[in-house]
């Protein structure tokens, strides 16, 4: 660590609290929380998709008109996109080393995840409320 040459403070002092990135373990923790939530949500989603393979529009709408199905689908979409943007950010940070390209691609990925996630939520709500 460069600071060692000028100071007697140990690197541990700098790393404590929120650490050098000033985000602490929050990003890592969010990935884990969403991963745990996605285990039951994914199992529900897979069963739901299998049960509605080849379903016509009326049957599909009837599925998502149920408040429980709508709730589960909204949660699946929101948590999936949260998990996806967190994971994709780490992938970009690992492989894109040009600072401007890194920030721009992270912003692009996060924006896209927000837009797609919002589109999924609005679609489910529209079906569920029968609009």
């Amino acid at each position, binding site marked *: 660590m460069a600071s060692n040459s000028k100071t007697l403070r140990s690197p541990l002092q700098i790393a404590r609290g929120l650490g050098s990135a000033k985000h602490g373990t929050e990003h890592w923790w969010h990935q884990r929380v969403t991963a745990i939530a996605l285990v039951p949500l994914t199992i529900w989603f897979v069963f739901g998709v299998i049960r509605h393979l080849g379903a016509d529009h009326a049957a599909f709408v009837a599925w998502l008109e149920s408040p429980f199905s709508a709730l589960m689908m909204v949660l699946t979409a929101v948590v999936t996109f949260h998990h996806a943007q967190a*994971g994709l950010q780490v992938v970009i940070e690992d492989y894109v080393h040009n600072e401007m390209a890194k920030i721009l691609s992270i912003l692009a990925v996060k924006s896209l995840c927000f837009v797609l996630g919002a589109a999924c939520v609005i679609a489910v709500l529209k079906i569920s409320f029968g609009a």
Partner: protein
Amino acid sequence: MANGSGRPLSPHLQVYKLPRTAILSITHRITGVGLAVGTLLLTWWLVAAATSPAAYERAQHFIGSFFGLLLMFGWSLALYYHLCNGIRHLVWDAGKSFELSEAERGNQIVIGAAAVLTVLTWVIGLAVW
């Protein structure tokens, strides 16, 4: 090692045979990115269903086409792999199963579970479709 310092060099991808744990690790990342791309289809599916019966039919028609089914197969395998290996990562996060023998056993469980779940899903899926 070749740099003359006597200190170990980090392995270079072109001359280093990746251990199985490393292959599974990078596969976790690749399937994660692939699944993120797959959310485009999920969004199209839900938005189409909310738009009109005709739009929904177009999405269903694409998913049921040969190319659509190929994508669905890839995504189902990727989903099960990422799910199973993700659970293994949570086990590691809990501080367990770090011994090499346990890691190798984990490799086999993850590969086996992902393969079995994928085949099972497609057998049931094609039967009820």
